[in-house]
């Protein structure tokens, strides 16, 4: 007996009939509570992988790049594959926080914090590879245009690798600032709730003296908007520049004009897949089912479907153009019959199956709303995107212009170890983050709490009384505790 028309289209973005206080408590719970066994197990595994990775890096730096499986023909393999893979993963964060902010997509609020955290942590992993892949990493600072004692010696501004240096460092710093800005009110919330002096001190440092005044909020909104405006072009630029590493070269299969849009789409594709992977686990482990709902998963799957489509078109274009070029120097590029039937057929088909075929299942509504399937698809896409970069780098390099120099690549334990190490490092950071940071932008979530009036209608129907002031009345809340303290009020 609705008194007015209610649009049936939108599903609520926060379920479980949360009050503002519930949100606060839910988000603060992992920080204030104790870690469970599962967390410790996951953390230990990640830490061991991380340490193993450090060991492998030390071995590489002290002995030489020769401990990897590279050769005179294939100068890059897992190193740059991992680099591009991690940078790609790092794409979703900025897209979610910046682009979706500009487009006023409210559903981003549940996922943006973790997506941005993921971005920063994966860019950290990505940044490792260009340094350790150098023959003399101790001279890595030479790629920075800093004044030096070598006379007029300067960096080579023609080199895409140099552009990478700027692109990645800009991206990392803007992402970090953006992330931190969003974190300020939430850190303040934690600060206000903290009872131990040490924690209080830490969180008050982290929250930069946030007071929750109206002026604070105004500035917060303004800065967020400005940063979103700044970060949006970065979403396009970073992977465009990464793709220049390949597109500006003369290697058959690399030298391709569609690389920039294709790489950006691929990066968003893989970034969203990684966000899905992380959040599907996190909503269970950190009891965030009410905030990260089926709707969120579906929205993200739709983005995956779109970007996956772009990527698929790019694959088809690459395949067609290689054939259409009519030159047999393109016979063995990574998307060609030569690759599909050559020694790297498995890598070729891994790419096609993981990135092209499997994501098509998301056209089915039931599947894209299914947590388990979404999780499986996200993992498959992550694998597929790793293979995409592996194929681009290794298959194209292995069969260059002169057949006399063709060769193959097989990784050593060090290659594998460093890759696992970065995965370990990533999860070490992410697990620490999950235990110490507000993993959902609770301040923002609170702005959309009332988007559904279901509860009030139900109350009206059941109790038949006025609902005025219900939100402020603890009795109408599902929350049965008594602690409605002032800090909650202060932060919201």
């Amino acid at each position, binding site marked *: 007996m609705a008194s007015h028309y209610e649009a049936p289209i939108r599903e609520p973005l926060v379920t479980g009939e949360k009050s503002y206080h519930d949100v606060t408590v839910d988000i603060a719970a992992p920080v204030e509570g104790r870690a469970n066994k599962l967390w410790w197990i996951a953390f230990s595994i990640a830490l061991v992988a991380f340490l193993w990775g450090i060991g492998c890096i030390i071995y590489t730096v002290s*002995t*030489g*790049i*020769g401990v990897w*499986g*590279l*050769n*005179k*023909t294939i*100068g*890059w393999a897992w190193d740059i594959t991992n680099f591009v893979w991690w940078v790609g993963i790092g794409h979703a964060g900025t897209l979610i926080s910046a682009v979706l902010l500009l487009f006023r997509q409210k559903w981003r609020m549940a996922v943006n914090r973790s997506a941005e955290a993921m971005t920063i942590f994966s860019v950290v992993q990505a940044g490792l590879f*260009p340094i350790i*892949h*150098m*023959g*003399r*990493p101790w*001279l*890595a600072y*030479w*790629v920075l245009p800093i004044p030096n004692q070598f006379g007029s*010696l*300067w*960096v*080579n501004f*023609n*080199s*895409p*690798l*140099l552009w990478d*240096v700027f692109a990645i460092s800009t991206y990392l710093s803007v992402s970090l600032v953006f992330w931190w800005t969003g974190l300020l009110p939430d850190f303040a919330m934690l600060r206000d709730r903290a009872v131990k002096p040490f924690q209080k001190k830490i969180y008050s440092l982290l929250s930069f003296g946030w007071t929750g005044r109206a002026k604070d909020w105004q500035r917060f909104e303004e800065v967020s908007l400005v940063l979103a405006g700044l970060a949006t072009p970065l979403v396009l630029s970073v992977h465009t520049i990464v793709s220049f*590493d390949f597109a*500006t*070269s*003369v*290697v058959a299969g690399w030298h391709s004009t569609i690389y920039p849009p294709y790489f950006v789409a691929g990066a968003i594709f893989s970034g969203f897949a990684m966000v899905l992977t992380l959040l599907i686990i996190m909503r269970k482990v950190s009891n965030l089912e009410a905030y990260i709902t089926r709707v969120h998963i579906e929205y993200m799957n739709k983005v995956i479907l779109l970007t996956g489509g772009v990527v698929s078109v790019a694959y088809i274009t690459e395949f067609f153009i290689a*054939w259409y070029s*009519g030159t*047999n*120097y393109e*016979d063995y590029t990574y998307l060609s*019959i*030569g690759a599909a*039937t050559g*020694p790297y057929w498995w890598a070729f088909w891994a790419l096609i199956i993981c990135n092209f075929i499997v994501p098509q299942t998301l056209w089915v509504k039931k599947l894209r709303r299914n947590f388990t399937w979404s999780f499986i698809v996200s993992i498959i896409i992550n694998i597929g995107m790793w293979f995409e970069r592996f194929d681009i780098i290794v298959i194209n*390099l*292995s069969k*260059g*212009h*002169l*057949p*006399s*120099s*063709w*060769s*193959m*690549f*097989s990784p050593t334990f060090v290659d594998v170890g460093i890759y696992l190490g970065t995965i370990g490092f990533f999860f070490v950071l992410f697990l620490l983050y999950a235990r110490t940071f507000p993993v959902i932008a609770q301040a923002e979530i609170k702005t959309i709490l009332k988007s559904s009036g279901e509860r009030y209608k139900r109350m009206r129907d059941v109790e038949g009384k006025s609902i005025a002031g219900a939100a402020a009345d603890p009795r109408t809340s599902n929350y049965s505790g008594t602690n409605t303290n002032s800090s909650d009020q202060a932060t919201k």
Partner: protein
Amino acid sequence: MASNRKYWSSVEELKPNSSIADTLKQNEFVEEIPTAEFLGNEEALGASSTSRRDFLKYVGFTTAAASLAACEGPVTKSIPYVVQPENIIPGVANYYATTIANGFDFSSILIKTREGRPIMVEHNKEAKINGSPNARVYASVLDLYDSLRVQGPKANGEYTSWDELDTQVVAALNSAKASGKQIALLTQTYASPSTKKLIAEFSQKFANVKHIQYDAISEDAALDAFESTYGQRALADYDFSKAEVIVSFAADFLGDWQGGGYDAGYAKGRIPTQGKMSRHIQFESNMSLTGANADKRVPLTPSELKIALAKFYGYLNGRSVTGSLPAHIDEAVKAAATQVARAGRNAVVVTGISDVNAQKVVLAINKTISSVVMDAEKPKLTRQGNVKALNQLVADMNAGQVGVLVTSNVNPLYTMANAAEFEAGLAKVDLSVAFSLKEDETASKTTYVAAAPHYLESWGDVEMKKGMYSLMQPTIRPLFNTRQFQDAILKWTGSSLNYHDYIKQTWETSILGLDSWNQALHDGVYESSLSVGETEQADAVAVETPQVEAEAAVVSVADAVRALAGTTPAEGMELTFYSKISMGDGQQANNPWLQELPDPLTRNTWDNYLTISMADAERLDFENYIEDNGGLNGSYAKVTVGDVTLDKVPVLIQPGQAKNTVGLSFGYGKKLGLKTPMQTGVNAYALYQGFDLTQQVKIEKVSGIHEFASVQMKSTMDGRGDILRETSLEIFNTKDSEHWNPQPVVSVNHAEVPADDATLWSTFDSSIGHHFNLSIDLNACTGCGACVIACHAENNVPVVGKSEVRKYRDMHWLRIDRYYSSEETFEGDMDMVEAAPNSISTYHKLEHPSENPQVAFQPVMCQHCNHAPCETVCPVAATSHGRQGQNQMVYNRCVGTRYCANNCPYKVRRFNWFRYNENDEFDFHMNDDLGRMVLNPDVVVRSRGVMEKCSMCIQMTQKTILDAKRDGRPIKDGEFKTACSAACSSGAMVFGDVNDKESEVVKQKASNRMYHLLGFKGTRPNVFYHTKIRNTEEV
């Protein structure tokens, strides 16, 4: 008388009882130091700012600074000249003409020494014969610095003194003389007039002396045939530059056939001039370097080969010869005979069959057609080995008739099939001395090891060819306590001369006539009409009965042909031995440069293997496959000849190998006197029974997988005919170059323009100063690999070892790509691509070489692109363009991103994956002080983590420029050189300044055969190639 000098420091001291002097003696300081004043002034002290804390800071800082300063930097030991030697100017190279004559390689060379160290072998322009060193000779300078050389005379594994050795040997010689026992000298072929004379004198003194010369890879059949035809134990010489038609029956004359050294002449005839070039037809079983260069190659078994030669003789002389051949071979033989008949005296026939009859027939054919190519008047003397004499010696030794055995630079216990017999005999010899560089298989079994000097520390002379002499002189003081064989013989004969004086005496009395010894020594070579006494006599004897000889020859040739025609086809497989251009007879097996030099055909390093045809491999279940890391793996075979078995011989499928035949190279499987990494391969000499290069063989598959170290995974060109352009002589002569050598064009504003005219870059003016170009003629290049080793030596290129080569991490700055055709010819490949481009079946067909493919070689080094892809991508600008056209690599600036290597379409950049010097993991010459002496001081040794590549020998071009500048003269064409172009005996590589419009390289560039490798990429290389022309004209 003791000195009573008195020293004084001031006049005051001279005065007796001077108070000032006294005071000064007591006080260190002339003026009073105002300590009291200073310390007494408490106010000032209190106001001073040095507090206790400051004091502690200073103490802390100074302690830290002192301890830091105490950390010493690495100490490099260097000893300056106390007295600067005459002729040595630090930084300026000295050159000496000398000769290598190690029994296998004979070559007149120039040695470059720096600060007294020989560091590089170069071509001796004065030499008219054997003046173009091969890869082994270029590498021989490293043997000098071999850390495993015997460093002094040894008895029973302990170092002893030369005096001790002399006493014992002379006693043994005398007792042998007394007891009538034989004194045997078993030596390499010296071809040395002085040594010959010396040994004659030695024989006179001790009587009963036998001098047996022994070649590990015997040319006995050819020597016997020549002796019976021309009366002298020598080998005919050939000048292939005069040949219009060359028919070779398994003669690998671009390899080591009869001593080799024929590639320069051959290459001359291969460059089409006025529409003509030589036609080369090769009949052979193994795919040899010579066969690979042939216009037509017919694979056949060794027994068919003999019949084919007989038939060839028949067709040529219009006689019918019995014996049957498969139809296609018969046809090819017939065609070859027709071609030879047509070319008449401009044709030549050669053979490598180790059968006296075959050799006789060939000599007879060349004589009949009076070939201008063959020179029997002045034969080559660089092979003297005598199998009969050797066998007699082994018999005598076993019979206990040999009192003293002296060996010199031979290793029969490794190189003889019946080594066990020799060893048994050796035990019965009273006293044996081995003059050897190494404690090898033989030296470790003799009573004494007489440490021999390397040829760069020795004196010597060689008569390469009758009347063509060459001198060997030391280029460094002996590194160790060594003595050369001839010096020892002189000493034992009781002569007071040393070998230098002896040679000088011999030359002055019987060779030089009135010419100057110093001039001959300076030139290193000498051409004389005189000859040493004995040879003259032998010749005189031979001349006595020419008529009878000739008649006998006709009869014997007919017999020989009959014998050849009657060859019974072998049952089962036949094995043909060959020697690799890298390893030769195996005496340089401890040379890492040579071990790592890829075989020109198989492109394999660090190994020998059984080459087998695809069909036989399938039949016998052998396989070759590429592992995941790109490394080549192969099965093992058990190879049995007679009752000798080699258990595990790796099998390599070789396109072009005749069916039912296998090949195996000498020189590997050595165990003593080698560093562990060099002990690779199997010893083929064990199967070399009766010094016959072909053997009946039984082959079985055995378990296990062998890991090869190949530098080339893909053996075909994959239909990319643009890479190595070639065409036939007919098309070359009749069609416009646009047809067979199209220059790349690109579309600019919808009009086609030459690719080089289209650019996005602003170019700088390269017409000022020098601008270097390198021309490579694919017709002249035989693929011999000398340039690769010369580059190694000049540029301190590291050796990385077998396992690293297998991972495609070889460091060669210059490589020689080898391609096989997938169809019978490369033309066929291109037809297939045109007929069905982009079809899957075309892909798969093009990936595999044909059964008997055409072969093409292409040397590839940094192309020094004027628009270099590597230069734009380096983030730190470590590789940049020089004003003289070089693409320069600045090692110090390189951070090692390897982006440049990825972006290089030619794949010529090499990365230092590890530190290759002073690293026990890479225990080659750069890991010991002795081996490092070979390093070129003008070129830096690269550190780990940096990229390196061909520099176009910028250190050589700069030297030329500076020398000319100092002399104030313009640079002549031909002065500019790179190590590879200087080493290229075939003239395939021409280097020069294109701004010098008169230069040879400009002429080469103007040729219509000129093309740039991957020119369509727009890289504008400074290296260019000449389209290969094949003379496919059949009669």
